[in-house]
């Protein structure tokens, strides 16, 4: 490229820098910024553009500095703990327990005083060694360095390396690396720079309202840009990736006629388990480990009647024609827990339904909690997606029908059903879906609510219930294998993650 071509593509800032360097010969970005009157960042950015055009270059010097940490600064003013320690010992405070009461840094002091061979300890008592006595008055090398550093940054090369390492290890010093660039023009740059004054007058860089008003652009040239040069990054505001998946699922469920429901996050065991016919004491309850609320431990009974029906159902089947479990623990039912399954909301919803509400379809997508140790597969917070369909004449084949429909919403290519066990459904099904890339994946569970669940809640029609592993589904959609990313705290990841399609 010749000098004119370069100039045609140069931004005003680049030209200003070229002009400045022609005068300064060589300069740092700070010096250029001062001369040109733009920010240091802008100088650096424009210099990089100019460098790609071959107009300038730079040399880089790396410099190390050390400076005091807050703790180091404190010691430089008030002496090192080991020094304070031997001073106290010299003044007769020589028992460790006593020292600890008087001097909070006794432990650190002892460690370093011993390292320095200043003290000996016998029977909890500290004795000064000869070395220690000598050092009482003298300022040692470490202290000298601390004092010096309290005034200024110091080139670490001037400090004894052993002492430097120790001080950094003790956290008294920090190291800082400074990179300094010195810019200078290439021959091409010099030639271009010499032509700038003329060009600046005849060219338009940024169009302004003034130029447009004055029609000044008509007899000037509008400068050409190098459209391939990097521009500053910007980040859009956007919906969190996991939420985008949830919104898609919601949209599809609403289109299938489902109404969205919500429920409380702190739940009575009653709604979380007992109303779902999970026995008070049975291995079935081991499916769930719960988070129990510390205080208050128990909630209130609002509808005595439904509690009585559930109690009877557990004890002897009530009017459901079931044998029941033979026992029920009301105290446990009153216990407050963090909702462990979205089915609690289904139970509450069934309890609130009136005859005229039927047929009825609801879903809920909500937070649940289980005491898992957090890792790539487990999170104490997780979301469940649950749905129920209530209506006369519903049957097992219909349940499979809904599962097939739901599998479509998650983009499955093939589906398969398998028997499974849930305490609150009979005709319990696991839905497996097939994806080309992943093979068979468990997508969710479903079943027909047991009469022991529906009848005490006042429902005499069949209730089809299903749950979808929405977190797992989202992980597949987002192509991630760590569940924690669903609740990501990584801004970089969220900014760069593509929109869910």
């Amino acid at each position, binding site marked *: 490229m010749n000098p004119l071509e370069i100039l045609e593509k140069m931004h005003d800032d680049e030209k200003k820098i070229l002009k400045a360097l022609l005068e300064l010969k060589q300069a740092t970005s700070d010096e250029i910024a001062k001369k040109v009157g733009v920010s240091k960042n802008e100088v650096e950015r424009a210099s990089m553009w100019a460098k790609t055009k071959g107009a300038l270059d730079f040399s880089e010097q790396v410099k190390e500095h050390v400076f005091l940490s807050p703790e180091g600064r404190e010691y430089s003013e008030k002496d090192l703990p080991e020094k304070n320690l031997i001073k106290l010992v010299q003044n007769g405070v020589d028992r460790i327990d006593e020292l600890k009461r008087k001097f909070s840094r006794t432990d650190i002091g002892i460690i370093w005083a011993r390292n320095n061979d200043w003290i000996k300890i016998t029977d909890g008592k500290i004795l000064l060694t000869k070395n220690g006595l000598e050092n009482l008055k003298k300022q040692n090398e470490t202290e000298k360095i601390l004092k010096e550093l309290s005034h200024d940054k110091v080139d670490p090369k001037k400090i004894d390396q052993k002492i430097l390492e120790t001080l950094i290890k003790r956290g008294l010093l920090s190291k800082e690396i400074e990179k300094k660039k010195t810019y200078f023009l290439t021959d091409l740059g010099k030639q271009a720079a010499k032509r700038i004054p003329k060009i600046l007058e005849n060219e338009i860089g940024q169009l302004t309202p003034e130029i447009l008003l004055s029609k000044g652009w008509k007899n000037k040239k509008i400068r050409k840009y190098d459209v391939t040069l990097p521009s500053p990054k910007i980040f859009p505001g956007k*919906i969190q990736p996991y939420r985008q998946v949830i919104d898609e699922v919601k949209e599809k469920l609403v289109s299938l006629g489902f109404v969205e429901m919500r429920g409380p996050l702190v739940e009575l065991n009653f709604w979380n388990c007992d109303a779902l016919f999970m026995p008070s004491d049975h*291995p079935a309850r081991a499916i769930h480990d719960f988070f129990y609320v510390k205080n208050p431990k128990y909630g209130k009974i609002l509808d005595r009647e439904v509690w009585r029906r559930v109690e009877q159902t557990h004890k002897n089947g009530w009017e459901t024609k079931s044998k029941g479990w033979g026992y029920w623990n009301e105290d446990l039912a009153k216990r407050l827990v963090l909702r462990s399954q979205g089915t609690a909301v289904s139970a509450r919803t069934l309890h609130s339904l009136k005859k005229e509400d039927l047929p009825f*379809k609801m879903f809920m997508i909500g937070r649940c909690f289980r005491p898992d140790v957090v890792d790539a597969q487990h999170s104490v917070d997780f979301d469940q997606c649950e749905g129920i369909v209530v*209506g006369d004449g519903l049957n097992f*084949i219909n349940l499979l029908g809904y599962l097939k429909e739901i599998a479509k919403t998650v983009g499955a290519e093939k589906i398969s059903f398998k028997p499974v066990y849930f305490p609150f459904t*009979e005709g319990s099904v696991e839905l497996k879906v097939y994806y080309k890339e992943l093979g068979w994946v468990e997508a969710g569970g479903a079943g027909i609510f047991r009469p022991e669940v529906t009848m005490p809640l006042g429902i005499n029609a069949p209730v089809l219930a299903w749950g979808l592993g929405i977190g797992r589904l989202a992980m597949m959609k987002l192509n991630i294998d760590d569940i924690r990313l669903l609740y990501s705290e990584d801004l970089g990841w969220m900014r760069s993650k593509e929109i869910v399609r």
Partner: protein
Amino acid sequence: MPTITYDKLDLLNLIGRKMTDQELEEVINSIKPEVVKITHDQITLEHYQDRPDMYGIEGLARAIKLYTGREKPRKFTEKSSRIDIKVGSVPLRPLIAAAVIKNVKLTSGFIESLMNIQEVLHETIGRKRKKVAIGIHDLDKIFPPINYEAVLPSTKMVPLGSTKEMSLMEVLKENDKGRKYGALISQSSKWPVYSDAKGVFSFPPIINSDRTKVTPQTKNLLAELTGIDMHLLNQTLNILATGFSQRGGEIESVRILGKKIEVTPDLSEQSMEINLDELNDWIGLKMQPNQVSSLLEKMGYSSKDRGKKIEVSVPCYRIDILHQVDVFEDVAIAHGFNNFIPKIPNLSTTGGIDKLEKISSKIRQLMVGFGFLEVVLPVMSNQEEQFAKTKVKGMMVEIENPVSEEYTGLRVSLLPGLFRLLSKNRHVEYPQNIFEVGDIVVPDNDQETMSRTERKISGVFCHSKASFSEIKSLVESLMKNFGVNYQIEQTEEMPFIAGRGAAIYSGEMKLGIFGEIHPQVLENFGLEMPVASFEIDAELISMI
């Protein structure tokens, strides 16, 4: 959900025919347990809690044979063994059940199975031996009279695997099983034992004696159970006894002489009447009685057709059958879930989004329009983050059994989570303007659950020039977009700088707060950049 590994060859021997791995997997998955892994000599299954009768290899083989038609439902009967067990007063574990299995051939597979089934039943139904403890002995090494009673800890026995006579107290202290299960009895002054003419032969729920241990030469077995729930003991005994008889032994009963005389086991079937129309309605097919009865047979039930009713005999080992729907499910399983043609019913309803979710969604749209990035964070948090670091005073719902210091309760505000997120992203380009729309939980003793779940919307500006006026413009714009008439009042609340915090009201109703975050709070969160933030109640906005 117990995961159990079986000897594949023993299983195939019990089934009595060759099956490929694929066949095995298909059949087992169709019955209910989930096949986890099959190797050349082992098969690993994950079981569900409702079918403990399939935990043992014999019960599993029976289910497979029934399902594939190699076995018909059997009627189990028991002869009397003429063996009596006298039961004394054992307050700790007052109830027992026992059975004799005669003429068994103890192959290595059987011995392994004996150990496995005891272990898994102890862990599951037995609730780690608290509700049921099982002991299985060589009957021919037991010399009546047999007693079950409570004795002093100084009583001697030779525990299984040892040659040394020890006191029960020593067993508790020195034996592995003693240390593991000792807590179940140690609070009592007298401990349960079975003894015969030669002394103690079982120390439930801890360990058996070495003298009566089962060996390859054993011909006759005594299974004894102790516990606190007779129903559960009988069920467990039935699972054990019917399982063992799958290997060809004969089950015999034992008389239990307690306050009254009982005879265990009771292997009689339970009769259940199911309604054919209800079954057909439940499944969605129109099956004839003969079809149903052949499906029932595949699941181990014998049945009699009584017109519209079918009388079903439920085998004694099926402890999960509480209601006719349990039998319905088995009919569907026998039919094969994948053999049904799924069909969505013609059931028209109108779908809809929850009101609060709807307003949340609108708020999100606006915030994104302002250029904010949405985050979704855990609802669980801790005292330190919610209160100590923010200097805000308040109460949160706390957990009795937290698994980590990070998650000890439920958040009362979204802001601390946003601050935590900012502190984790100090190396990332600024400005960092983020928001969350999410739930918090406030203690409230007037509520059924002693708390209220509330929906909040919170946002932060975090960059070198984040300021009060910036956040005020944002909040005011939000309010105007929702058509809310509001007033702004000064507050001295943390986490804001005094004089730079404000509350926003609509009449008497406080909608939220906003302001510039106090530098001490920023420091507590390790933040080195100014932050201005707001938090507003979404439900209140939706009501206005």
